[in-house]
C-alpha cells in the first residue's frame, strides 16, 4: 500500500508534504472503496439480471427513502471530512512562520532570479537551509508564472502586479526541481530551477563564499557556467539551431542585421549591449523579448559571457 503511494507521489521533502500526502491517500482509498463498491454492484446486477427473454417482466420500484437518505448523507459526511482536512493543510501552507528566512523571487520569461537578504542573487538555482522555514516573496516581471516544487508540495502563482508568498521547510538536504506551472509562452516548459537544500553549516558557508564570484576561475569557464545559471539556455542554443533567440555559436565577429535594417558587427561592445540593453538593437527575425541583464549579472560574469561567446567561435 505505502509502496503504491510512494510511487504515485514525489519524495516527501518538506514538513507539509506528509500532511498533504495523507489527505491524498485518504481520498484515494475512500474513493477507491466507493468506486469499487459501485462497480461491483453494477457487475453483480449485470450478471444476475441479464435479460433472459424478450418478455421479462420487471418490478416497478420508484424509490426507497432509506436508501436515498443514506446515499445523500454519507457523501455529505465524507466531503465535510475532506474539506476540513484540506483546509487544515491549506492553513499551514498559507501561514508562513514569522521567523522564516526570506528570499525574494523574481520570475520573468523565462527564468527565475533569487535575491537573498544580504544582497546576493542567483539565477535558476536557489540555495536554502534545511530544517528552517524559508519564505519566498515573489513577483513577476511580465506574465503570470507559478512557482512549483513538487518535492515540497508547494505551488504559488507569481503575479506582475503584487507580491505573493509561499513558504516551506525542507527536511532533507539534496536537490529538488522547481517548475514553472503557469503557462507563460514559448519557454514555459524550460523555466526550471534547482533547489539546493544545504545543511545549516553548508548554507552559512555558501552564503559566505558561494555568492562571490570565483576570482580564479578562467573567464570563459565562468561564462559557460553563467550561460546555464543565468538561464540563457532557455532561449539560446550553442549548436547553431534557433530557439527563441538566435544561436550563439559562431556569432562573434559576424555582421548582424537589425530589425531597423542597419547592420552591426558583433564585437565585444555589441555583445555587452545585447546583454545590458537588448531592446536597443533587436536582431532581424527575432522577437524583442530578451530580458535585460543589467543589475542581474556582475561585471565579471558579463566579461565571462563575452569571453565564452568569443570562444564558441574558435571551435
Amino acid at each position, binding site marked *: 500500500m505505502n509502496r503504491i503511494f510512494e510511487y504515485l507521489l514525489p519524495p516527501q521533502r518538506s514538513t507539509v508534504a506528509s500532511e498533504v500526502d495523507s489527505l491524498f491517500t485518504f481520498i484515494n482509498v475512500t474513493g477507491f472503496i466507493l468506486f469499487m463498491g459501485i462497480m461491483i454492484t453494477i457487475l453483480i446486477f449485470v450478471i444476475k439480471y441479464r435479460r433472459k427473454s424478450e418478455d421479462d417482466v420487471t418490478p416497478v420500484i420508484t424509490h426507497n427513502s432509506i436508501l436515498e437518505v443514506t446515499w445523500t448523507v454519507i457523501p455529505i459526511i465524507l466531503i465535510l471530512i475532506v474539506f476540513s482536512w484540506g*483546509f*487544515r493543510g*491549506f*492553513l499551514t501552507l*498559507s*501561514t508562513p512562520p514569522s521567523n522564516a528566512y526570506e528570499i525574494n523571487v523574481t520570475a520573468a520569461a523565462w527564468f527565475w532570479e533569487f535575491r537573498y537578504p544580504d544582497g546576493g542573487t542567483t539565477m535558476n538555482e536557489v540555495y536554502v537551509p534545511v530544517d528552517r522555514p524559508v519564505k519566498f516573496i515573489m513577483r513577476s516581471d511580465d506574465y503570470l508564472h507559478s512557482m512549483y516544487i513538487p518535492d515540497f508540495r508547494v505551488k504559488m502563482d507569481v503575479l506582475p502586479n503584487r507580491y505573493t508568498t509561499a513558504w516551506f521547510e525542507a527536511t532533507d538536504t539534496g536537490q529538488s526541481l522547481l517548475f514553472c506551472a503557469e503557462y507563460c509562452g514559448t519557454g514555459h516548459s524550460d523555466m526550471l530551477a534547482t533547489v539546493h537544500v544545504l545543511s545549516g553549516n553548508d548554507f552559512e558557508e555558501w552564503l559566505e563564499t558561494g555568492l562571490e564570484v570565483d576570482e580564479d576561475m578562467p573567464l570563459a569557464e565562468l561564462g559557460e557556467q553563467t550561460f546555464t545559471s543565468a538561464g540563457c539556455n532557455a532561449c539560446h542554443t550553442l549548436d547553431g539551431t534557433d530557439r527563441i533567440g538566435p544561436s550563439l555559436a559562431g556569432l562573434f565577429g559576424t555582421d548582424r542585421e537589425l530589425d531597423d535594417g542597419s547592420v552591426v558587427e558583433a564585437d565585444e561592445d555589441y555583445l555587452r549591449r545585447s546583454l545590458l540593453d537588448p531592446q536597443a538593437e533587436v536582431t532581424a527575425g527575432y522577437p524583442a523579448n530578451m530580458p535585460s541583464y543589467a543589475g542581474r549579472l556582475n561585471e565579471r560574469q558579463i566579461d565571462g559571457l563575452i569571453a565564452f561567446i568569443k570562444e564558441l567561435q574558435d571551435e
Partner: protein
Amino acid sequence: MSTHHISTLSTLLSVAGALLALTFLTVAVTWFNIPEPFNVIVAIAIAIVKAAAVAMFFMNLYWDDRFNTIVFLLSILFLVIFVGITLLDTLFRDAGLPVY
C-alpha cells in the same frame, strides 16, 4: 390569466411622471452631501425603484405571467452571486485566514 394587457393611458402617464420625479430626486440629493455609504445606497435605491416601475408597468410584468418575473429576478440573483463571491476575493486579499 390574460397576458394581452392593455395599459390605460393614465397608468402610463403617471408612471412616466413618477420616473421623471425620481430622476429629479436622485440628482437633487447630490446637492446635499450625504455621508459616504449612504449616498450610494440612496442613489441605488432610487434606481431600483425606477427600474421596478419600468419593469412592472411598462414591461407589463405586473399583469404578466408570474414566471416572467421570476425569470427576470433570476438574472439579478445570479449577478448578485457573481459580485458577492468575487468581492470575497477582491476585498480580502490581504486579510489572511481566520484561525481554525
